[in-house]
């Protein structure tokens, strides 16, 4: 049994298991809420309940006083939902967030292509057009797999009747294995979306750095195509990381864009190119390519990171050491079952990264 908790004012929706605290579920699902002590004594995580009921848990009577209980306040570090809920937290709405409503769709598979030896491009025709922001993702329901799987949208919002998804086959991953081995053109899948806070902050016109790893190219592809199609003139850099030339997919697309647009720069990086591939580009990890290109100075830019957790982690460290900080770093982490749940204690130093 689980409940849906909607977090206002951002509209993020999290799934909370019976007996799980709202904070625990939120952090595990990538939704940041203010918190500090984590055990009900400090009140940093106090929110207003707009709808629904919760067990207040072990909230201290000083951290959550009677009058606040009467007003419908709860501490999310202790509160466990007893119904679906809507809560209002002390978090900011991003002015660039368009807030397109999440809806359910049916997608019919129109094309499956091999982008690389491990990544397939799957195109779905939607039964209705989906308004979304470049960078956002959808949840797919995969037959025989419990829950849903998230995939970033690789096409642009202008192209709203279809979805292009990049799916890497995760070793031992039930969902991606099914999509690689069982899915056929003509099949239909249930899709919901759009989700996520990963989109270009267009109101900030500073130069934009995209760092993508593996199938994490999907979101940046949508974001870059969207910017360039609008005639955006800010400098745009795409650092694409892959193991070898065979895995470096859509390279021709971005090389063509770089030739066509003076403000777009494409820098691929391979960490293990094969001898026979005759690679003359950057050898090493993608964050190292960025460090070299910018001579370890990133300030004055916005950065967007998309890919597996180790790549994101390395990129954040590189960016921060090059003086670009949390408020200018945006990211989408591609978690798989293999990444497990991060049980290491976290400090409250960073909110989103």
């Amino acid at each position, binding site marked *: 049994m689980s409940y849906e908790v909607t977090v206002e004012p951002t509209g993020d929706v999290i799934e909370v298991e019976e007996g799980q605290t709202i904070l625990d579920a939120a952090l595990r699902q990538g939704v940041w809420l203010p918190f500090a002590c984590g055990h009900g004594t400090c009140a940093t995580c106090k929110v207003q309940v707009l709808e629904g009921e919760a067990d207040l848990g072990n909230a201290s009577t000083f951290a959550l006083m009677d*009058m606040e209980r009467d007003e419908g306040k709860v501490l999310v570090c202790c509160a466990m939902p007893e119904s679906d809920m809507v809560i209002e937290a002390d978090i900011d709405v991003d002015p660039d967030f368009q807030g397109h409503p999440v809806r359910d769709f049916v997608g019919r598979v129109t094309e499956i292509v091999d982008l690389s030896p491990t990544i397939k491009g799957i195109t779905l025709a939607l039964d209705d057009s989906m308004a979304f922001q470049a960078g956002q993702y959808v949840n797919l329901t995969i037959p025989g797999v419990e829950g849903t799987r998230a995939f970033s949208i690789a096409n642009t919002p202008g192209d709203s009747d279809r979805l292009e998804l990049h799916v890497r086959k995760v070793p031992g991953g039930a969902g991606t294995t099914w999509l690689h081995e069982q899915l056929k053109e003509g099949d239909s899948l249930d899709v919901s979306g759009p989700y996520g806070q990963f989109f270009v902050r267009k109101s900030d016109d500073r130069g934009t750095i995209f760092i993508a790893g593996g199938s994490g190219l999907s979101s940046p592809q949508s974001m870059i195509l969207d910017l360039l199609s609008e005639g955006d003139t800010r400098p745009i850099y795409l650092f694409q990381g892959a193991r070898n030339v065979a895995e470096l997919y859509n390279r021709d697309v971005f090389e063509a864009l770089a030739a066509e647009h003076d403000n777009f720069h494409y820098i691929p990086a391979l960490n293990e190119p094969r001898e026979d591939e005759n690679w003359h580009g950057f050898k090493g990890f993608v964050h190292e390519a960025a460090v070299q290109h910018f001579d370890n100075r990133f300030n004055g830019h916005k950065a967007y990171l998309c890919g597996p957790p180790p790549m994101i982690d390395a990129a954040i460290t590189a960016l921060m050491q090059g003086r670009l*900080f949390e408020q200018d770093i945006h990211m989408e982490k591609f978690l798989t079952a293999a990444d497990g749940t991060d049980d290491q204690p*976290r400090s409250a*130093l960073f909110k989103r990264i």
Partner: protein
Amino acid sequence: MAAKKLNIKDKYRLLTRDLDWEFSYQDHKKAFPFEEFEGIKITDWSKWEDPFRLTMDAYWKYQAEKERKLYAIFDAFAQNNGQLNISDPRYVNALKVFLTGVSPLEYQAFQGFAHTGRQFGGVGARVACQMQSIDELRHVQTQVHAMSHYNKFFDGLQDWSHMHDRVWYLSVPKSFFNDARAAGPFEFMVAIGFSFEYVLTNLLFVPFMSGAAYNGDMATVTFGFSAQSDEARHMTLGLEVIKFLLEQHEDNVPIVQKWIDKWFWRGTRLLTIVSMMMDYMLPNKVMSWKEAWEVYFEEAGGALFKDLARYGIRMPKHADLIAKEKEHVSHQAWWIFYTHGHAAGFHTWIPTDEELDWLSEKYPDTFDKYYRPRWELAKEMEAKGERFYTKALPQLCTTCQIPMGFTEMDNPTQISYRESIYKDERYHFCSDGCKEIFDEEPEKYVQSWLPVHQIFQGNCGGPDVEDVLRDYYRMNVGADNLDIKGSPDEERWKKWKGVA
């Protein structure tokens, strides 16, 4: 169209940050004269992110409610003679240390945040410091009120603020805060707002307050919870300060690192007194100092420093040594007080046999080897009527002001001893950490008011120790000091409990 509802951030901005003004006919630098001399570079105060958004009207409402609840519990505790429900009269001695050593620090924090807040050019930081300042004043008041009930029944609590200013071991906490308050505003924030509040107060408030609960002291538990509900704001302020300084300018990074090195070392030395309270002074134990250190410093602090590494900040200097000290410091500290029990403002004792066994179990690598034999010897001597007191006054470390009783951590039978010569005078230190702090700012620390030096110079009355204790410290000699065994505290307790 109806006006959109203001979100909390906008409401806060209008009611708080918007109250600032531009200096049009006065020089900004003259208005905030301390902002630059530490070498910290602030390029844009508007980048300050408010760590919490609380408007003054809401602040008063919440704090008033907390007080109402807290004082209702104090009243109930007093009316029900709560002092009779504590585990053991020895427990009250931990409260004596707390009231004379820790509560006055809350008052110093109140003064420090008021002063520091005034010195910041950014309004967000000023408002946050103002609220913390008022919180700290509330904390000292509630602590004094919680303890005042014990003062009616036990010795040693009657003159806490006077004692804080003068008594030899209380110069350790007092000088710690004086050092921070005599620093510039940014160092104060790194020292108290970050190092102390974020990392170290948890060790005081969480395990020690649980200790109060385990020992039946509802009044102290309740003020602990009440204070802890404010601490969150203090911790988030400390974190924001660090982030802000590190992000404002890269030249700030080495300065902040130096302060972190200094104040973590100063903080661990200060917490020695808490280690002793946890391991020796709580009759019902919660967890050992070593366990508390592992949970609240090593795990929580480890996660923090992992994140700070992204800014180029490393673990505090001597972290490897600090990791070894958790096995030793509580035993070494209580031994110092046991051997100076005649000059302490609280009672001392030899741990009971069960307590010695508990210590052996909690410290399998060190207690039986180094510390248990001392207590066994002390027990033997006491049984023969030869209870041992150190007659001499201890040599103090010039930086932390703790008697030079700590050992080398890799050789726990050798006293750790360092020295520096500055302008032809020799200064003594308990550790590399304390020596380095002195060497960095000798002009500051040569002014230290070291209690033992002051006694020898004749500035504390005398000539005998007993004269100093009675006349200068205002202790009730024979009641406040010496062992719990045979003390008036113990006699009264037996009478209340009907024990012969």
